[in-house]
């Protein structure tokens, strides 16, 4: 439980400690008598787990160079999926009460299969069938039915009936987290924000592991402190990151440690803003439908984004809105090597950015961040912008 009067550094360090040892944090929850469910994709409706008394903890990667997953998953699946599979195979999470995912991209689906098939989770796993195209009208009713089955499974697992009231409370807790995280990111719109982009990213990442009530208390304190805090210094070139899952904070730190002054001011990814930039409608009579509508309204994952009738990529609307609101000088496309949907979005997104006059560059992620190469590429990128933006 957070104590009153913590300073911003202490609060941020508390969040950082969770990201550095998520297993330790999850175990501590269990030691307090809570059930803990690991989840592999952010399309899992955490609200249902939470309503059933389980704390959802996201399974992310650990960026350790490992070879063992090559005996389980094909090498041309992305390193993020390998690394997430590795978390199961290395038995770091054997203590979990459940592993759950929703029909996800093929690579992450396979990471889940490895947990189920080879890491000892066959008897304590659940796959939620989830639409691959979320914008269709029939998707909502399909999701509602899927969520109904998932709810029944949780009730059986916990031997506890989940009431509408339980779900409503859970929706409210999660929406509160979303609003607080949004408020936190809004600080980065300022010319001289009181918190850095890497710290905001760290807090957001930590929220994906944490019991949301504890997370909310810390977030409330942090935001209150930041409202009165001075800026952290004049920012340099404002950079936005757009792409796939990236839980390696090293890359975000690198952006702010270049020879030229640069600031991370927005991250469009499922490990950052795409995780929470939506809300589930509250006080609706049909709770599961409300959750379905909330998740449909999310910024779509590129693997699920195709508006029927036009083929539009709805995510692009959000990206353009973020560019308007956060005013980046440049965009860094950041995606996992071997990821299919992200780079296919970039082909279509780059001309839009060109029209907006926002330059961009690509970085391809692997298990570890190649710091030297990325540094060179990012500094070269900044140099290409020097006519428009003064370099510090």
């Amino acid at each position, binding site marked *: 439980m957070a104590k009153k009067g913590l300073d911003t550094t202490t609060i941020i360090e508390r969040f950082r400690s969770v990201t550095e040892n998520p297993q330790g944090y999850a175990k501590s929850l269990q030691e307090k008598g809570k059930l803990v469910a690991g989840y592999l994709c952010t399309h899992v409706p955490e609200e249902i787990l939470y309503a059933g008394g389980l704390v959802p903890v996201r399974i992310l990667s650990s960026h350790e160079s490992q070879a063992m997953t090559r005996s389980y998953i094909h090498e041309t699946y992305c390193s993020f999926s390998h690394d997430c599979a590795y978390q199961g195979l290395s038995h770091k999470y054997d203590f979990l009460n459940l592993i759950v995912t929703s029909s996800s991209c*093929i690579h992450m689906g396979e990471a889940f299969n490895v947990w189920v098939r080879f890491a000892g989770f066959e008897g304590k796993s659940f796959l939620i069938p989830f639409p691959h195209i979320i914008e*269709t009208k029939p998707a909502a009713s399909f999701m509602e039915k899927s969520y109904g089955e998932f709810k029944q499974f949780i009730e059986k697992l916990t031997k506890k009936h989940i009431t509408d009231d339980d779900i409503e409370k859970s929706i409210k807790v999660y929406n509160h987290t979303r609003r607080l995280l949004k408020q936190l990111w809004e600080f980065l719109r300022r010319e001289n924000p009181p918190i850095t982009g890497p710290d905001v990213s760290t807090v957001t990442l930590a929220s994906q592991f944490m019991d949301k009530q504890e997370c909310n208390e810390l977030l409330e304190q942090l935001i209150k402190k930041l409202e009165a805090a001075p800026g952290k210094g004049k920012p340099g070139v404002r950079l936005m990151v757009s792409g796939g899952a990236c839980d390696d904070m090293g890359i975000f730190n690198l952006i702010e440690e270049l020879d030229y002054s640069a600031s991370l001011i927005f991250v469009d990814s499922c490990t950052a803003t795409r995780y929470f930039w939506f809300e589930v409608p509250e006080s609706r009579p049909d709770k599961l439908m409300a959750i379905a509508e909330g998740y449909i309204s999310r910024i779509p994952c590129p693997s699920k984004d*195709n508006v029927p009738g036009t083929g539009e990529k709805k995510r692009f609307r959000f990206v353009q809105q973020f560019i308007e609101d956060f005013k980046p000088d440049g965009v860094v496309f950041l995606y996992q090597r071997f990821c299919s949907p992200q780079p296919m979005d970039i082909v279509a997104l780059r001309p839009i950015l060109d029209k907006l006059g926002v330059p961009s560059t690509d970085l391809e992620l692997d298990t570890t961040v190649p710091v030297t190469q990325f540094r060179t590429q990012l500094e070269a990128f900044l140099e290409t912008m020097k006519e428009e933006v003064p370099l510090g």
Partner: protein
Amino acid sequence: MAYTIKSMADIKSYQNNVYRNYLFATEGLRAMGSTWSVLAPLKGLGEDIHLIGGEPHAASTAGTFPDEAREDIIAAETGGLGFHSCSYLKLFTGEVIRDKIGITDRTIKEGYPKPDVIWTTHLCSQHSKWYQEVSRRMGGIPMYAIDMIGGGAAEKDPKIVDYVSDQIEAGIQWLQQVTGRQYSDEFYAKAVRNEIKVLVLWGNICALNMHAPAPLDERRLIALFPPAVVDRTTDESVRLYEMLYDEVKQMVETGQSVAPDQRYRIVYFGIAHTYGHPEMSRILRDVGAEIVASVYTFGTCGNFKGIVDGKWSWEPIDPAWVDVLDLSTRRKATEELVKIVLAWPTWQGVRSWWALESMAQAMVDDFKADGLLLAPSRSCETDFRNGYVSMQRIFKGQIPTIEYDSDQVDVRKMDLPGAQRKTELFVELMKARKERRA
């Protein structure tokens, strides 16, 4: 003596005509999309709908024009598509970028004919994104992608059948709106019956390979595949497969085969890549080793009994069953179509490890395999790459099993010498096993 398939010329001609119609039709509508789409809904718009399907067209272009195919892939990569992306997608998009298209009768047409609509499907993480990119490059073609959420007995899950049916019915409304045409449920029902019949007949033809000698080899199976993949909704496609089914039954009754020297029977998992690499198939052929069952050619557009009592069955479905299906309303026709398409082995395996393993075990058993050849395609994330590694674990104790990486059309991604050595080793393993058992 090797048997020569009499129906082959007509089937080849059917394939050529479908593509020629797409290229040169002066009337009617052009529709582009994945082979893995339900096609019958398009046919409710009329009998003048000309189709071009992504995967079969890309595959046949690679086989017909290897040099053009290479240029197409390079053009797509230069245009921004990643090296690791699907090579069917890149070849197909490359033709659009180069504004020229080659078809199986060796015609190359300058000026890629724009489709009126894109009607497609989505299963892997880039399947419908393929056509989003094509649509964008062509200036915005109206596009409708159906989410075929599948995996493991999906056709028996009413929630999934409803979901996919609802999307198709909404798609039919969209087709009417975007084309301005009246929709004929009579045409639709007829096309649905044809589509289901072709899928069931293809399953029956493939299942005849359980016999020894297997009447067909992989090369002929691919060559006979077009009616199922280029347009399976027509009376002609049904007629061709009825004719072929009778012919192959006759082959079985008289013990004939297109490849009669069958000392080793191979079950194959992977997208057919050997047409790009005759060096590979020659190693097998020289020792009388034939691929007699392949989940890709059998199950991409073919139906079998599937999961029965929790276990996979490659037994065929009685074609007469199709004739009595109740397709009297749009909804009934749609649901029957959805159930048959969701039951394709490929759908089942891509998103379900247990269905994949069950169908592999049944294929090894039912087709009496001497060896299992796994050739995952480096650029296809749904080509059962999800299951290959665990399948090696399962089968290596049962029968000789090898795996090498391949690619469906991008020859740059193949380690040819390495794959050749592995195939030679595979042959030696099968020989040794046979000798041990003799």
